[in-house]
């Protein structure tokens, strides 16, 4: 990955045109709703404006190359974890939070460096990336011992371990994916398809939503939205086949299943956490979306499962 490679990459250019086109079409549709049909679109407008910033940032980082991409996804992961820690109250324990930050930095470093020995080729120290949670959990368990503290430590350690595995390690598979041979296709597809899945769930839910999907967890999500989004996600790999021209029908079906189901799962599992704490959003950093974690939640499941599916059928690097 490099700016030159991105510029000459058919896949990157196609995604660039598709994203720009979709944003333009969505903007025109919103303008038509607002001025033509005199509908109140202010809240969707705020959400849309945030997309106008987020889409160029993501595309820009992937365009800039492998190192900026890895850095960007690790930063997102750290910011997401910070929101999780602030929401649960874990943030007051700076030692434990610091260890998780270190763990996320280690994920970035293992994604950046070369495999130091052994037969594997290519960038990224895959073996250590995969076992990093073992060492980070050991380090988290070490914190109360070093500080000689007991009260509330089980809760802090558990939250830190969940936060690291879930928001750190699982999400950072996106960072490691920058090492793939087909990095542009994989990364752009996963991010694009997951966000399309989110938007589709929202739109179908708005239009046809009646039956709550999980009434205790997220009252606004509906079966209609989930099924609509699932249908879109199953169709999308065939439409966007240029992202991974070597994928056969089975891989395309798996891709659809992973995004369609994983996206919903990610969303719902963050909702479980939010509901248990008793808050609405994880933060307020993205106007119209809530926190960063509210935006990246559906990627958390999709990223590692897609990564290992693609790695199972084709060598990643």
């Amino acid at each position, binding site marked *: 990955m490099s700016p030159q490679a991105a510029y000459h990459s058919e896949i990157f250019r196609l995604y660039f045109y598709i994203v720009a086109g979709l944003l333009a079409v969505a903007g025109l549709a919103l303008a038509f709703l607002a001025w033509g049909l005199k509908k109140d679109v202010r809240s969707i407008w705020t959400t849309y404006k945030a997309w106008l910033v987020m889409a160029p940032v993501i595309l820009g980082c992937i365009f800039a190359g492998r190192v900026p991409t890895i850095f960007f996804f690790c930063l997102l992961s750290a910011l997401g974890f910070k929101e999780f820690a602030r*929401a649960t*109250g874990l943030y007051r324990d700076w030692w434990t939070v610091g260890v998780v930050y270190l763990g996320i930095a280690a994920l970035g470093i293992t994604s950046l460096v070369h495999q130091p020995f052994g037969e594997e080729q290519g960038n990224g120290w895959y073996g250590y990336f995969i076992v990093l949670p073992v060492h980070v959990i050991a380090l988290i368990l070490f914190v109360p011992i070093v500080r000689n503290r007991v009260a509330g430590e089980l809760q802090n350690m558990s939250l830190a371990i969940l936060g690291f595995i879930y928001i750190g390690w699982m999400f950072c598979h996106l960072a490691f994916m920058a090492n793939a041979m087909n990095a542009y296709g994989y990364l752009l597809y996963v991010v694009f398809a997951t966000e399309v899945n989110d938007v589709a769930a929202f739109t179908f839910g708005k239009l046809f939503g009646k039956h709550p999907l999980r009434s205790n967890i997220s009252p606004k999500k509906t079966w209609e939205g989930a099924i609509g989004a699932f249908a879109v996600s199953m169709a999308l790999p065939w439409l966007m086949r240029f992202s991974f021209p070597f994928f056969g029908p089975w891989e395309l079906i798996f891709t659809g299943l992973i995004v369609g189901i994983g996206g919903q799962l990610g969303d719902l599992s963050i909702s479980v956490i939010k509901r248990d*704490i008793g808050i609405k959003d994880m*933060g307020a950093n993205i106007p119209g979306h809530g926190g960063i974690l509210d935006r990246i939640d559906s990627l958390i499941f999709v990223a590692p499962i897609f990564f290992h599916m693609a790695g199972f059928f084709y060598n990643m690097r």
Partner: protein
Amino acid sequence: MNSWQYEPVADLDQPLVERLRRFPREPDITIYALRSLAALAARAWLRVYHRFEIIGAENLPKEGSFIMVANHASHLDAICLLSALPLRKLHRAFPAAAQDYFFVSVPRLAVAAVVVNALPFARKTHIRQSLEICRQLLANPGNILIIFPEGTRSATGEIGAFKGGISLLVAGTSIPVVPCFLEGTFAAWPKGKRFPRPRRLRLHIGKPRAYPTHPTNKESSEHISIDLHQAVLDLMP
């Protein structure tokens, strides 16, 4: 089995700018790190560019809360006073800064809240509420309040009369007040200039004083203001 108690931070539902604007601010690892780095850079800058010297550092109380008062002629003042404190006290030192100047535009807010750790003081609208915030701050041991009792930067370099707010804070309490005199900041960076000039800066720190027997009335308040004003003037070489 009891369920877990979650305690979300108080500013969870606020975007970053609002979180910087509120006071007291929730401690934030990134902001503490940035502030420490900025303090190191500022200390190096003062030392090299302004040949900054501190005279009487031993007069600063070693523990407990205290107030530093100084003359005010330049934006360098707060940074000079912060540089006299040990780094570990950096995040507990709060220069009172004009809310109407520092807490409005985002770039100034970023400098005030992140680098200087300023306390928003509503000098024009809510003086009593602002003083109440200062009082609560001083009630916690280990906090340091930095106040420029002139209320604004001097336009001429002369030290203006001290306003009464400081007296309301310390009358009848044993909170030590440390008078400080800043030499050269007006020549280095007067009001209205864009960049500081490489002039020598000196900070003179006087013996702390306290006013435990003063009642909280107008007369004694005037007396405290005049006394502190004189204490700062006396440090002038």
